[in-house]
């Protein structure tokens, strides 16, 4: 199976990278853009155990290594 993991800075964290990209988009004329936030996207292949929900272990991976929960949030999607 494949897990698609989105990691983004928490809403109250200033994201200077997103801010720079946002101003570049404005310079290109895309003035409708009000905010850009930049995170990471991870695809992770794993062997699923039959009858077992893979989510708890994936969440543990996010908390322990893939995301820093002090400053980031994560979202996991699972594809068969």
């Amino acid at each position: 199976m494949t897990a698609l993991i989105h990691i983004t800075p928490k809403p109250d964290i200033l994201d200077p990278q997103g801010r720079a990209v946002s101003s570049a988009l404005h310079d290109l004329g895309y003035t409708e853009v009000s905010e850009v936030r930049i995170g990471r996207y991870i695809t992770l292949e794993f062997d699923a155990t039959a009858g077992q929900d893979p989510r708890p272990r994936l969440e543990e991976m996010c908390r322990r290594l893939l995301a820093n929960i002090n400053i980031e949030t994560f979202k996991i999607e699972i594809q068969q």
Partner: protein
Amino acid sequence: MTFGIVVFPGSNCDHDCYWGLKHELGLSVRFIWHRQRNLEGSDCIILPGGFAHGDYLRAGAIAQFSPVMDSVYQHAQKGKPVIGICNGFQVLTEIGLLPGALLRNDTQRFRHEPVRLRIERKDTRFTHAYNGASVIELPIAHGQGRYYAPAEIIEELEAGQQVLFRYCDAQGSLGAESNPNGSLQGIAGIMNRPGNVMGLMPHPERRMNARVGGADGRALFQSIATFG
């Protein structure tokens, strides 16, 4: 007192630390490869600057799981000194020995320049040998040095007087102009509540001799070596 400098793949200030401690201060020092668990009798552990494991994922994220870090964690839990410089500070926050996180500089640039720092306390094991002025100059060299922690953690740090260094101007005043990366409260270096673990973004090991730009880093290591 023996200093042990942890060497991760990608560390690049390890030799500066070694040179400064051994040849400038005449202290006992050794390297500790990140795969080993034995700290070889080191009394103070230094996590040096650099780009451990290429800063992949996040700065310090992978280094926190190097085998040596189990032993470093235990060392700290026993109340023994551990310091993290720059990338080492990032590792200490990732592993949870120090609170908060170091985010990308608000300027979006890698900043490498001398900065002024105000020493907030001179009664700690890391700063007691600073006898002179309270404003010192050390270089920074980082892209991710913006100290951040939630408001309640910042409050705890301030209440516990755990902030040891802040970015300031020549007079010791704080302000946006003298803050190179957007750190909250101008924080450049903090210690943990018990006072045995310290992290800072500037590089004291690069200011060990006036012939190479300054000697304001010496007293930090001398403090550790002569504490207690």
